[in-house]
């Protein structure tokens, strides 16, 4: 079955007859019924849908590639993925950051199979074309520099500037978080993120609020799961509903800052996850967070006095700084930047990317962050907490993978695929938000408003709507109007009831 609207660039084959419009066999939007809270399992299981995602979503969305501190020095590089394309995050000799396709322009060999390192030149093992990160040798870093037998093989005429490593046209360094987008017409990163940037700020800023003053620990956890990548994105985007059951075992044991038996995220006992103030935030353009920026929750209470000292001080400084800016203190997530970068900005503080491999396979990567200027004992405490908490060895995340993998397996069947998933939590009970084009759930734990918005945006991308249409659709949030209509109707009904009361 041909995937719809593959958005391919020019087809080099001579066209025999006038090319007809590609046959659209599936529309992603037909599989996502946001109004009734029903989403087809094909969204997760279909290979055709997966192809559409790879063609229409991943090469047009802003994707997290790596952290600036992973390529701190000129010549540093870090191997990453953007969708199913291998890329290199590099720093040239002048200190500029680039994202390059890690595939030789001659026959496609993966020019660099190291996970990280330092070099000013990538030499392809196959026939030894070499690409330079030194701008004094080539027009733009990443350009083709050396070609064996240039004279004999190409008569000296190979147009080197045209055969450099493919450069990602849009790269944005947000406080050390490096994002990239293959589509040069894509909306700018800051527009794409919108007011969701408050969560990114909390992720990237130090605990005391110093902008961008964070670094990642050396070592990225990488592991494979047999599940669709969206299960992962959706889980962090606002599925607080799963915690009580999925993580019952770790919560029973208690691995948090407060010591054995204390909550794993370190909320103090009077700030449990059920607090009504902790409603979720859902953005029209697909991002979602499990909390809201008005939900102020101080840093945890630790067993170790020196940890309390560091975090009490950080909270105080942060409060003062943010109060002065008129900025809210909340917004730690877990959260997902559409489509596949999830993170938590508190305890733990970590980034997760779900790299798609196929409809039912995903490679998950996890990074951990710490304040650059944190003393050694704080970094060490956090490192140990992160490792016992998250990743495939982490006592929390182990159980997530079991659910995602076996949910996938049990959804694959022909009969299973006839029955959609239910996303009806909190349908029609969304609340207004002070943030731009965003709404809140009406409950802290249950409420699938975030997931509904995520899949609506997902379908708009996957159906390959133009950037004009995409921007247009997200220019306003129709959920806000619906809330206002609902509230007006309720107010009118109340007024009418009042009136009839007084008449009587």
């Amino acid at each position, binding site marked *: 079955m041909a995937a719809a609207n593959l958005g391919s660039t020019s087809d080099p084959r001579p066209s025999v007859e006038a090319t007809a419009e590609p046959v659209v066999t599936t529309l992603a939007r037909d599989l996502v019924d946001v109004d009734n809270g029903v989403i087809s399992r094909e969204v997760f299981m279909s290979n055709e849908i997966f192809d559409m995602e790879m063609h229409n979503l991943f090469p047009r969305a802003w994707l997290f590639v790596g952290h600036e501190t992973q390529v701190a020095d000129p010549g540093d590089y870090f*191997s990453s993925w953007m969708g199913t394309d291998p890329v290199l995050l590099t720093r040239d000799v002048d200190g500029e950051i680039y994202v390059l396709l890690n595939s030789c322009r001659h026959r496609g060999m993966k020019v660099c*199979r*190291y*996970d*990280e*390192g330092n070099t000013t030149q990538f030499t392809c093992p196959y026939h030894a074309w070499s690409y330079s990160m030194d701008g004094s040798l080539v027009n733009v870093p990443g350009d083709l520099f050396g070609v064996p037998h240039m004279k004999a093989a190409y008569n000296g005429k190979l147009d080197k500037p045209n055969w450099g490593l493919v450069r990602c046209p849009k790269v944005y360094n947000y406080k050390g978080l490096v994002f990239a987008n293959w589509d040069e017409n894509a909306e700018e990163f800051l527009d794409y993120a919108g007011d969701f940037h408050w969560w990114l700020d909390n992720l990237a800023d130090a605990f005391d609020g110093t902008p961008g003053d964070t670094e990642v*620990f*050396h*070592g*990225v*956890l*990488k*592991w*494979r*799961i*047999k599940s669709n990548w969206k299960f992962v994105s959706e889980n962090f985007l606002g599925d607080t509903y799963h915690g009580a*059951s*999925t993580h*019952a*075992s*770790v919560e*029973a*044991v*208690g*691995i948090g800052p407060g010591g*054995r038996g204390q909550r794993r995220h370190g909320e103090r006992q009077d700030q449990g996850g059920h607090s009504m103030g902790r409603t979720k935030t859902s953005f029209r353009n697909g991002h979602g967070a499990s909390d809201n920026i008005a939900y102020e929750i101080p840093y945890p209470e630790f067993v170790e006095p020196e940890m309390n000292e560091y975090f009490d001080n950080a909270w105080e400084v942060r409060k003062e700084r943010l109060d002065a800016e008129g900025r809210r203190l909340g917004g730690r997530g877990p959260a997902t930047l559409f489509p596949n970068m999830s993170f938590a900005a508190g305890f733990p503080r970590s980034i997760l990317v779900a790299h798609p491999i196929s409809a039912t396979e995903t*490679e998950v990567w996890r990074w*951990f962050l710490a304040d650059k200027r944190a003393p050694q004992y704080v970094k*060490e405490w956090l*490192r*140990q907490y*992160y*490792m*016992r908490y998250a*990743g*495939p*060895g982490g*006592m929390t*995340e*182990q*159980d997530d*993978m*079991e*659910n995602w*993998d*076996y949910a996938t397996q049990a959804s694959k069947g022909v009969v299973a695929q006839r029955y959609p998933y239910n996303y009806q939590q909190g349908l029609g009970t969304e609340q207004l938000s002070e943030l731009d084009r965003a709404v809140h759930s009406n409950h802290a734990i249950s409420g699938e408003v975030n997931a509904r918005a995520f899949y609506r945006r997902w379908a708009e991308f996957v159906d390959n709507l133009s950037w004009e249409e995409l921007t247009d659709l997200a220019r306003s949030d129709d959920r806000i109007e619906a809330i206002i209509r609902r509230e007006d109707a309720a107010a009118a009904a109340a007024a009418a009831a009042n009136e009839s009361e007084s008449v009587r």
Partner: protein
Amino acid sequence: MNERDYTKGPDRWFLLQEISDFLFHEANLLDERRYEEWLDLLADDYHYSVPLRMNVEFADADTRGETKVGSEVCWFDEPKSTVELRVLQLATGVHWAEEPVSRVSHLVTNLRIEEVTMPEVKLSSRFLVYRNRVADETDFYVGRRTDVVRRTDDGWQIVKRHLLLDQTVLLAKNLSVFL
């Protein structure tokens, strides 16, 4: 009693037999999920570490091929108290990653004595941990292992276990078994 010579000869051979027997027993306790008995074999200062492996150049393989225990992100890098938490979790009955329980076999092989500084002995070996769960979910965790064991009045104890898992990307979905 004569001073024993563990560098060669029968003393070394007997020591290796004794420790082999201990390690095979220990592996068996894990496979039979007798975790409380197993914990008793870990010294109070037990340390368990499994660094991440990375793709690096030949020249860097010994220095940069794995993350640093003690300061960088590892699969595991923890004291006995954390291992005890993991045992508690397994026993809750709602630890879904191991519920229903997996079938696990720990193979310990190529065992050699590296260094004897009584009461401690440093050992090198290869490990193969096989896990099968539910139906076709099958994982192999394979690599190099270094142990430090200590002779006490109550028998041998494990002081240190350091494993180099031969994967950069973990191909199993999780590490909910002890390696």
